[in-house]
């Protein structure tokens, strides 16, 4: 009866109350940051003494914030495209291939997700220092592609495993070339997986802090590096404004994902 929602009695009251409290705990920081970004207190007092848009004005007046955001977007877009393309090819090999060591290969390609980022960060930083890629956009993109790759491979392999290969074979029997069959039959069928892969890969790079802290140069820094630097200095409300915009972006991504999924799965 512990798994019958209707018959938990007093226990249900307690557990639903607890769940609501945890949901509030998860929502609390996000809501507070957005509220505080409109508050007039320099010291982030709550409730704010008044409401203002000046932190947003300061944010948009400062070219380093805009630069950092554009850099982040550029690097994340490139890393996401690379990760999805490379991940798509790798997924076909992982799901369809018939060779020994397939599981080992899967494990290897997913390792960057498991290894503590700080280990990879200093390793790739040292390596790039040696070959002259440290502080360059290419270096950033390579490092972020590696971190984004597992997030692309997992949804694509999952979608591919759920796709019945005999449909592709049927297309070939009907006269399509293997390449045509893949492009016209298989890819459209796993588009939800590819779409999820793109979102996750983008976010993996966009939100990445640790590698970015090491890789950044005075002329090349991403948004998380900019925020990190500001946080180490003080708790300026400008960061709250920047953070609120990031929350807004997350919400937009969630809504777009939900809508697209509904549309694509129809």
């Amino acid at each position, binding site marked *: *009866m*512990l*798994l*019958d929602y209707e018959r938990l009695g007093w*226990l249900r009251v307690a557990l*639903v109350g*607890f*769940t609501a409290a*945890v949901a509030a*705990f*998860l*929502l609390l*920081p996000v809501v507070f940051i957005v509220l*505080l970004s409109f508050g007039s207190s320099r*010291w982030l007092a709550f409730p704010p003494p008044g409401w203002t848009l000046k932190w947003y004005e300061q944010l948009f007046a400062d070219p380093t914030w805009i630069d950092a955001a554009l850099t982040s977007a550029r690097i994340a877009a490139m890393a996401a495209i690379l990760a999805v393309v*490379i991940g798509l*090819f*790798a997924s076909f*090999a992982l799901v*369809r*291939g*018939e*060779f*020994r060591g397939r*599981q080992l*290969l899967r494990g290897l390609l997913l390792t*960057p997700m*498991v*290894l*503590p*980022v*700080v*280990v990879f960060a*200093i*390793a*790739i930083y*040292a*390596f790039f220092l040696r070959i002259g890629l440290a502080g360059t956009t290419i270096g950033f993109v*390579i490092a972020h*592609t*590696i971190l984004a*790759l597992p997030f692309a*491979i*997992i*949804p694509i392999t999952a979608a591919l495993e759920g796709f019945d*290969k005999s449909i592709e074979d049927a297309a070939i029997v009907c006269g399509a070339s293997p390449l045509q069959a893949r492009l016209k039959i298989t890819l459209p069928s796993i588009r939800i997986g590819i779409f*999820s892969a793109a979102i996750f890969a983008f976010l993996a790079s966009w*939100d990445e802090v*640790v590698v970015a802290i*090491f890789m950044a140069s005075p002329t090349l820094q991403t948004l*998380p590096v900019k*925020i*990190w630097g500001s*946080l180490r200095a003080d*708790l300026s409300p400008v960061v709250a404004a920047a*953070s609120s915009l*990031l*929350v807004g972006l*997350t919400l937009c991504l*969630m809504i777009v994902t939900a809508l697209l999924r509904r549309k694509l799965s129809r």
Partner: protein
Amino acid sequence: MTAFKRQSFAGLPAGSGGAVPALLLVGLFFIVPVVALLLRSVTDPEPGLQNYAALFGSGTYVRVFLNTFLVAAVVTAVTILVAFPVAWMLAIMPPAIGSIVFGIIILSMWTNLLTRTYAWMVLLQRTGVINRALMGLGIIHEPLPLINNLAGVTIGMVYIMLPFMILPLVGTLRAIDPMTLRAAALCGAGPFQAFRRILLPLSLPGIAAGGLMVFVMSLGYFVTPALLGGTSNMMLAEMIAQTVQSLLNWGLGSAAAFVLLVVTMALYAIQLRLVGAGRPGGGL
């Protein structure tokens, strides 16, 4: 499907060709740098194990190790305790209410890590909302030290780890047949007995797998402990970063990184075995 033998090129095994770009990328820019780093731990500044000797011989570093394990253990324990009831309800709730909670979990999970940590810095500071609220309610008279200490790290990390524990646990709990619990009730087990003897043991594999994952992730966490923790309870990841970035002691930093890598990978291997399938969870 022998009718459609896929072409294999350059003598590669059938169907493996697609993995070549990924393998090249990961091999050249992941395996090589990491191996080079590990080699550095026994060659920099000179060949030998002096970096490891320094690491394990110094009280400061040993304290960092112990503190890292302590924080990871506390975070894991608190995360499990908080996540279990939530996962339980999410597993059996009517979907209309449940999807709201799921939405909140996903929102918090997708929100920028620095944003979330920054929010907790603001909330937990001496003059922050939580201290003011507690003082306003008359529960405390002096502001509680909630930041730059174990409490701050725990709150911030639990916040980040909760989704990673809740979501897989919901799967575990949904896989348990409610009839089993009804059978336990008819056998005479009241709510407490049914929980202790049936529900908890049946969800233990999920708790263990999720808990181990949270523990492993916590061990190597950098951002949140660096911002919410204090100098007296520094964690391993921050120490590695500082050793390399500020002290430029690459040999020692590499050795510490190697220790972190070995512990992480060993625990991860156990976690994979617990989950059963040879595939990490997460993704969605």
